[in-house]
């Protein structure tokens, strides 16, 4: 009998332990932000071509279910075909070549705080003296919670 009461006491203790922290807070956010480059005015798109010595306007529609975080653009060469895009469509790549003065851009675009959707737009100047060829245009978007979506586009600089 003594054993039994001891056992039940312990079970009761366990029950208390397992219940004591179930405060009901709002559900956590597990949804990734979205980068939309499908709209008609979005640029660049997969396989877009831009020119040296000229400017182009980057445009994409960003959205998140709670709040957008930060946006980063990165252009780096793909002369060695080492990387690939996240898009299904394949672009024609030029021959593999050694970089001499490849274009490099790492640019942060500020998203005003508290936004669920944002039309991002930024002017990008391509210097005239850089290597032409295949490049990658990486768009990295986070939301406030730290979920990140990456879009990798293949572009050409002529």
């Amino acid at each position, binding site marked *: 009998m003594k054993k039994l009461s001891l056992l039940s006491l312990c079970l009761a203790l*366990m029950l208390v332990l397992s219940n004591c922290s179930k405060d009901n807070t709002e559900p956590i956010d597990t949804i990734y932000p979205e980068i939309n480059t499908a709209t008609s005015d979005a640029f660049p798109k997969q396989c877009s071509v831009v020119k040296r010595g000229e400017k182009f306007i980057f445009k994409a529609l960003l959205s998140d279910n709670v709040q957008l975080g*930060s946006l980063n653009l990165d252009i780096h060469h793909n002369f060695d075909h080492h990387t690939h895009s996240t898009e299904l469509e394949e672009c024609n790549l030029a021959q593999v070549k050694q*970089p001499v003065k490849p274009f490099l851009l790492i640019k942060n675009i500020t998203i005003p705080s508290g936004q669920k959707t944002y039309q991002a737009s930024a002017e990008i100047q391509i210097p005239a003296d850089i290597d032409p060829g295949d490049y990658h245009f990486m768009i990295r978007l*986070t939301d406030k919670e*730290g979920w*990140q979506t990456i879009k990798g586009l293949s572009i050409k600089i002529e």
Partner: protein
Amino acid sequence: MKSFYVLLFPLLLIFQTGFGQAKNSLPDSTLKTTPPPSTHQLKEVVIKDKRLQLRQKEESLNVITIGSDFIQRNLSGSLMKTLERLPGIKTIGIGSGQSKPLIRGLGFNRVVVIDKGVKHEGQQWGADHGLEIDQFAAAEVELIKGAASFIYGSDAIGGVIDVKPANAPQKNTLGGSIDLIGKSNNNLYGSSVNVFGRKEDWFFDSRITYQNYGDYSVPTDTVFVYDYAVRLHNRNLRNTAGQETGLHLNTGYVKEGFRSVFYLSNIYSKSGFFANAHGLEPRRVNTEMHDASARDVQMPNQQVNHFKLINRSNYQAKGHKLEMELGYQRNFRQEFSQYVNHGYMPPVYPDYLSISPELEREFDKRVYSMNLRDMINVGNHQLTTGFNSEYQDNAINGWTFLVPSFKQASAGVFVYDKYKINEQVLLHGALRYDYGQIRMFKYTDWFDSELTAGETIISEKLIRANDLNRSFNSLVWSAGINYNVHNFLLKANIGKSFRMPIAKELGANGVNYHYFSYEKGDATLSPEQSYQLDLSLGWNEDRWSVLISPFYNYFPNYIYLNPTANHDFYYGAGNQIFQYAQSKVLRYGGEFQLKYKVTENLSTELLGEYLFAKQVSGDKKGYTLPFSPPASALANLTWSPESESFFKHSYFSIDYRITAKQNNIVPPEKKTPGYGLINIQAGIKFGLCRQQLTLSLQAQNLLNTKYLNHTSFYRLIELPEAGRNIIMSLKVPFNIPLNKQKKEINNELSNKYN
């Protein structure tokens, strides 16, 4: 085909040696731990069982002990993977078998691995390589689930895995064993050869292990690394092959009241990383080169060498039992990968640098350890006082940077009292004080980065880490009770544990090439503290037993890698910044174990585990902790025939493990669906040339189920776990009788068989 011959060759060798000495060898080969006549063997086993039962009853922490039998039966890619069958134990693996342990969801530097009495120090923080431990050399493994800092010092927050070597051989013996192993999934073949001997007081015990494996196969043709579809050749995971060697030599002097043993070992491994998922982004690779052979290791790959020299001595006199361990370890790890410039690195690797363009990373760690303990019995008190100290020197190399070089020293003293009130109640109390110091060294980039200062753009080499000197101290305690009446067992323990922040948490500032993230340390972190309450309730009957072990755990300042909303736009090439931070964390869960003997030959087992973790403050308030294992249960049915039949010591066992889905995630994790797996184990012991051979067979993931493991290193890139794997292992013991012994044994043999 080649592997077949490699397997065959040692087999031939064994049988030859076996036949050669058939006349004189012993009927039972378990001589190492038991005296020759097999009637004694049974007795020994019983004693061992009692010892474990006693340990279970006298230890207020949750302890599981497993022997080499368990390892042989469930042999997996690594010791940690083998232990995964136990409730509450999981691993973070990289597929090919190498893995890091997770005890109740805590891993890396929150689990202490003790090897031959000394804390194993490698690069514990990394998920991409295994523990440098040879599972063939492990005779017994003791697992402590729960806070054990009071005896093991910093890091023992989640638990302890104590790997014990084989006991010293019996007097006047010379013998050994040959293990052969083959695995179908990654075409692994391997062998471990052990030779031991002892005259009177001196003994030696040596072992050589070699394993070689190819790319492992997964039940899918295409893997999606983020959104990029990677086609797999023959369903093999490109470039995940590898090799491992282990060399061991133990020698020492054993006498009543005094023993001193030296353990020398060197573990080396070379293994490849999945080629499409290493670097700053998913990569297109030269598939022709990689797919030409499933056994070659191309870049990216890693090589790890772990050297150890340990001395363990103990001395008993006047009621005191003095123990000492002295250790030297060197862990040397290199990661090789083709140079890929990122951020402002020059597009072509400059030839003026002295570092090889293929050496991505190098960590060189030297560790000196010393432990002292004194045990004394005073009345009903068993008092243990002890001292642990460790000094580490860590150097780095390679063209990338993640963690600065550092030196670290720590020391701790403890006192632990076990007080036996009566036959039923044991009380435990412990107190410990630790002091530690870490000195990190400045690191400057070898290339210029572009910085904007106001309107102008300047180029300069960035300082990634500054000199830093920090010291920590901590006072921890533990209290526990054991209550044993008849068949009932109760254990309770409450304790405080701590962990010194590691160099990576304080000073990381670089890209993690596996997760495409930029990791940043925080030099101001305070030592992590943890309070844990452990409970175990058990009931043992002849035919059945049940054990329930819940726990409750609170961290006022858990250190975790927080994925922020920001990006690094220098060295990290725009990668997301993961910042080390501290938050309050609450965890609870438990394990359940039920054993029932249906008939004399048929037994069944039900194991279950559950874990809940939640951050209750900080940036990720409301989220769980990374790598939280989902709930799972394992049902087992084991058939072991009559001990009289030909099939004595044989078994056939089937495991069905069902794992729940894990929707409780934290960035950057993904929700993982649940799955069910069937594993089969079978084995037989049989006599051949008067040696008792053990043949074990396993089928892991019998149905070739395609599933994702939430705690896998490759989970983020949606990589399924290994498909069906048939594992076969054979243990062939041998004895070389010494002249003096021959006659005796022959007499015994003739007595026995007449």
